[in-house]
Each structure stands twice: as structure tokens, then as C-alpha cells.
């Protein structure tokens, strides 16, 4: 990295003497960046590199449970990925593994709901009412449900974190009241 360069930041439109613009973090455009080879290199880098912060955060989470949460609540932001971001990255990995193994951990098929779950009796009665209201048969409805439940399981996964956060809050308040 060169420390003494003179260039105009295209984003802020101000002269800059350091390698990165102090306002926005922009760096000077190199002639190579506009070549096909330069674009190829950027693409390769984007596809193959794993952000060091992500790796550091994942390692901290697995090797020292709780310390990542503590660091985040203390205001350490630069070194680690935000909790929600890390959760999303884990989701992508999880969906990838589900796809590879052809398994669905959270979504159960309609048949499973109707015959293999603790709430099967309730599911059967709810479904019967639903089919009656929509004038549909089980055979027509089953594929629609099975497709939709997989999609819902992926898109609503964040819902699971809410009750646990509330329980932690309740537990923390109960402890504070006792002491």
C-alpha cells in the first residue's frame, strides 16, 4: 500500500493523499480494474474468499461460547460479524447442507403432520375444516402444502429466536429480582 498518493475521490469529490478516502473508504481506481482480467480477478476473489471477520466470529462462537455475545454487547464491532448477519450466513450453510442431504429439519410434510406428530389429531381436524372451506380435496391440497411448508420453514426461521430471547429476558429479570 502506498501512503503518499494524490487522487480525487470519485464518491466525495475531494482530494485525497492517502490510499483510502478518509470519508468513505474509497480507493483509487487502478487501470487494471477496468480490464477483463481485472474483472475476472475480482469475480474470482468474491467467489472464493471467505471474510476473515466471518471466520473469526464463527471460531469465537464455537471455541468460546458466550464471548462473542459479550464482545458484541460491549461494543466490539470491527472484529466480528453482527449477530444477525452471522445467523444469516449460518442459514445459507444450513440450507446448502439440507439440499445436499435431501433432508428438511424444520418442515414436516402434510402426511407427517397428520399421522406422525404429537398434534396429529388437531392437524386432522384443522385440515378437514380448511378443505371444507376451500372446497379442495386432500389429494389436490397435499402437494401445494408440501411445497409451501418448505419455503415457509426457510423464510420464517428467524421466528425461533424470538421466544428464546424473551425467555432469557424473563430469566434475567427473575434473577435480578431475587438478588
Amino acid at each position: 500500500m502506498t501512503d503518499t498518493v494524490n487522487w480525487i475521490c470519485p464518491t466525495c469529490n475531494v482530494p485525497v493523499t492517502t490510499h483510502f478516502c478518509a470519508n468513505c473508504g474509497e480507493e483509487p481506481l487502478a487501470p487494471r480494474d477496468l480490464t477483463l482480467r481485472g474483472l475476472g480477478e475480482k469475480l474470482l476473489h468474491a467467489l472464493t474468499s471467505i471474510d476473515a471477520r466471518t471466520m473469526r466470529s464463527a471460531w469465537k462462537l464455537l471455541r468460546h461460547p458466550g464471548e462473542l455475545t459479550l464482545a458484541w454487547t460491549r461494543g466490539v464491532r470491527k472484529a466480528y460479524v453482527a449477530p444477525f448477519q452471522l445467523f444469516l450466513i449460518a442459514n445459507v450453510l444450513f440450507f446448502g447442507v439440507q439440499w445436499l442431504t435431501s433432508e428438511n429439519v424444520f418442515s414436516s410434510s402434510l402426511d407427517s403432520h397428520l399421522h406422525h406428530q404429537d398434534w396429529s389429531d388437531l392437524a386432522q381436524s384443522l385440515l378437514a375444516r380448511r378443505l371444507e372451506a376451500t372446497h379442495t380435496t386432500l389429494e389436490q391440497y397435499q402437494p401445494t402444502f408440501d411445497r409451501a411448508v418448505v419455503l415457509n420453514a426457510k423464510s420464517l426461521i428467524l421466528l425461533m429466536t424470538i421466544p428464546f430471547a424473551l425467555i432469557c429476558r424473563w430469566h434475567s429479570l427473575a434473577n435480578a429480582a431475587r438478588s
Partner: protein
Amino acid sequence: MTHVAFSLHLYTFLLLLFCVALLLARFSELLGFGGLDVPRVDNALSTANLAACTVYIYLASGPGYGASGKLRAAKAFLLALTVATIVLGYRFVLLLITLYTT
């Protein structure tokens, strides 16, 4: 905010744990012991997941909440059971949401 961050980190850990469990189930299937459709494999992996979750909560509650004392392990186990219940509850909520939106 601490509770939300703690919860998000726990579920991130769980998703990574499920990744390992799914790959182990696949490996078990390839070795001829059967996959998640075999109750013995399913139960073994569920128990291992619950144990790993308990250990995570036990360890994380120290730095995260300053937990200590004799009851810490019991509380961690109860919270891990709560997590398992939430997973089951999520499946049930998915049934309701899917049923009434399709």
C-alpha cells in the same frame, strides 16, 4: 439487546450443529446403518444435539450472563429443553401458517 444477541448466537450454533448432524446421518446411511428415517439414528443424533446444546448454553451463560453456582448445569439443561420445545413449536406454527396461507 443482550438477550437478542445471545439468542441469535445460540441459533447460529444450532444451525451449524444441525449441519454436522445431517452430514453424520448421511454418512451413517452410506455406511449402511440407516439415515434419519431409522429411529435409532434419529434418536442418537437428537440426544447428541441436545447434549451439545446444553454444553453450549452452560458455557455461554458464564460470559454472557455471569452465571455460576451449582444450579448452572441444571438451568442450562432446562434451557436446552426449551430450545427443543421451540423447534417443535416452530414446526407446529409452520403447519398453521401454511394451512391458512395456501
